[in-house]
């Protein structure tokens, strides 16, 4: 048993997914150990609430388990797939609310300081990549960074962002396009993009 688990830890994500397809919960556990942290971190950043982030991540991983072997390697890495599911599920949870504003997220953050203090921050293994992305984001003009952060991390649509910032929707889309375009160049130069 011990040697089987150690062998599972040596498998690549794609090979673990093949085991998951066969109903191997131990393989799924290894996947959770690898990707549960980034998944939770993304959900927590988006939700601003530890409890809500945990619910979303739990829901996401259970849906991944039920999906069994439906992972398609041609669409990206296992981590990309997991984070995409978490991102979509978080936005789904936002849609269940009748109205949500950037301010309500800010207010929630104050109550979360206690919960956040109990969380264990981890050192990112691929620190250079993480630093590269953070640096590239900070290099963007604030107006472009803001719409990207509100949409991706905040889960707001371009229409909602336009209303929040009192801008035409076309301007918001334009800033998204310019911002992502600049990020693409920066990350490509930094060797972060695959």
């Amino acid at each position, binding site marked *: 048993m011990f040697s089987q688990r150690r062998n599972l830890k040596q498998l690549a994500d794609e090979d673990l997914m093949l085991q998951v397809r066969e*109903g191997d*919960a131990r393989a*799924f*556990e290894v996947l959770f150990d690898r990707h549960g942290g980034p998944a939770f971190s993304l959900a927590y950043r988006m939700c601003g609430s530890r409890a809500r982030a*945990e619910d979303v991540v739990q829901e996401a991983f*259970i849906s991944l388990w039920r999906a069994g072997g439906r992972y398609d390697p041609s669409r990206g890495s296992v981590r990309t797939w997991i984070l995409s599911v978490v991102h979509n599920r978080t936005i789904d949870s936002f849609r*269940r609310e009748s109205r949500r504003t950037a301010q309500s997220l800010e207010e929630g953050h104050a109550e979360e300081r206690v919960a956040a203090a109990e969380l264990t921050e981890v050192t990112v293994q691929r620190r250079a990549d993480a630093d590269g992305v953070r640096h590239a984001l900070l290099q963007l003009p604030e107006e472009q960074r803001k719409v*990207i952060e509100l949409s*991706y991390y905040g889960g707001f649509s371009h229409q909602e962002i336009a209303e929040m910032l009192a801008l035409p929707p076309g301007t918001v889309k334009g800033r998204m*396009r310019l911002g992502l375009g600049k990020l693409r160049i920066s990350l490509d130069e930094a060797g972060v993009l695959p």
Partner: protein
Amino acid sequence: MSGTHDCTGDAAAYALGALEPEEASAFREHMQQCAVCRDEVAALGGVVQALPTAIRQYEAPPGLRRRVMREVRSEPAGSLTRRVGVVRTRAIACGVAVMAAAGAFTGIELTAGAAATVFQARLSGISGSAQVRVTNGRAELVVRHLTSPGHGHIYEVWLQYGTHAPVAASVLFGVDSAGNNEVAIPRRIHGASAILVTSEPSGGSPKPTHAPVIVTRLD
């Protein structure tokens, strides 16, 4: 460029998941004919995939790990080869046409140790596909390429028992940029004759405000 559409206008918003559901649906259709937009989305998608690395990273809370694995171990995942083989055996043993060609019931998928019954849904006024998978009395609604509910709206799930008014299943859902979602229905469906889905204002409604767009008969 494809027609008069601004081919560089929506790609970034789509890649960020920032288009309204009906806009995303229209853009997906547009991409089927426009290689420019497809390429743009593919390129920007790589950038968006990098965004999660820029935020503070935490360990998953231990309690979360325990809850996920407890639920995983109580609900085995599927195995396609075993599923097909045992369905045939059951059909022969029971003398019943398990894979019905007509009606809502389409067959049984066997997971490792637990049978998942699959019911095909009927859609009205929207495109895509939907089915309900029932395992041990628990249901999951699976939608694919579904029309988005529209700006300011959301899909809501109801359970119907006989001729009684539908009961809210406490589930609201949207669809991702591909029109997909898998939604667990928290209530046990024992005794329910149908699972219904309506399009409601964001936040849901206490009662259905329109005719259902998805009907899955369970009887």
